[in-house]
């Protein structure tokens, strides 16, 4: 089950912890992958580590021209695109009353608008080939909210609504659209927390540990697989039980 041999995938934000985990897992299951991220050196190192069936393309997703070039490049390199993982995301935290327009706009642009543009570009080929798996990496805070993250939570909630709408539009064409909502996952983002913050987070997590990138990657493999063809418009929460929705 969950064999991705012969499938092609584009993963954005592949130089981040979760993105790299997803990229590795899809590749391990046999997919050919195109990896995108802002850090070219990190992409090259990752590609060298993975070996065959890997293409890389550095792109800054706040640049719309770079966004629009990404799907055609991936399709060109791999001969098609079956699986799109919209994983790239940034945070610009601030309490709501002080939130700057730039902080709002930057997060919307990278976390939501780029996912819209990439999916719009990818879906045409998926319609033609009658196969597609669109996966958005959202966040538990898109559903629960989080102080200091009104912009991020809005973008992530937006991704869930977008995913459901896409799912309804293209379900009859064997294209699914789903979201994965991680809770607290061990990445560079959570490494920055101090012990006190970490402890207070763990108190809200019944599993009493942070999640790993593998916890998220496993879900991405499942949603990308042929076997998940009847799952669409869903948000899979992977958070150790911290929010049961």
């Amino acid at each position: 089950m969950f064999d991705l041999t012969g499938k092609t995938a584009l993963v954005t934000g592949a130089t981040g912890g979760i993105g790299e985990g997803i990229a590795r897992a899809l590749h391990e299951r046999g997919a050919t992958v195109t990896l995108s991220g802002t850090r070219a050196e990190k992409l090259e190192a990752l590609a060298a580590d993975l070996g065959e069936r890997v293409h890389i393309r550095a792109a800054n997703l706040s640049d719309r021209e770079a966004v629009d070039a990404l799907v055609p490049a991936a399709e060109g390199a791999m001969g098609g695109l079956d699986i799109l993982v919209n994983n790239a995301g940034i945070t610009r935290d601030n309490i709501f009353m002080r939130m700057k327009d730039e902080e709002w706009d930057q997060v919307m642009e990278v976390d939501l608008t780029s996912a819209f543009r990439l999916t719009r570009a990818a879906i045409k080929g998926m319609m033609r080939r009658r196969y597609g798996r669109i996966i958005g990496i959202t966040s538990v805070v898109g559903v629960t909210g989080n102080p200091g993250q009104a912009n991020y939570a809005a973008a992530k909630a937006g991704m869930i609504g977008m995913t459901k709408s896409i799912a309804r539009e293209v379900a009859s064409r064997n294209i699914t659209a789903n979201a994965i909502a991680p809770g607290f996952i061990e990445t560079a983002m959570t490494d920055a927390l101090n012990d006190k913050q970490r402890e207070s987070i763990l108190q809200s997590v019944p599993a009493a540990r942070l999640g790993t990138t593998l916890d998220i990657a496993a879900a991405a493999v499942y949603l990308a697989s042929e076997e998940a063809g009847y799952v669409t418009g869903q948000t899979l929460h992977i958070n150790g039980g911290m929010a049961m929705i």
Partner: protein
Amino acid sequence: MSDIADRVKKIVVEHLGVDTDKVKDNASFIDDLGADSLDTVELVMAFEEEFGVEIPDDAAETILTVGDAVQFLEKNAG
């Protein structure tokens, strides 16, 4: 009937699964042939492939009937 019209009608019959005799020039894809909005997008994609042309979104939006498609392609397909 032109060659282009024949090919257009064949695509419409195949994609929408309708009887050939229903695919008249003035037949509307949505109102007469039972297409939904996604079908119309797919038809345009099929025309693009068959005739090797790109049909921009604003042109695609004006292609509502079989005749519209034939007319557009007669003008634009090489």
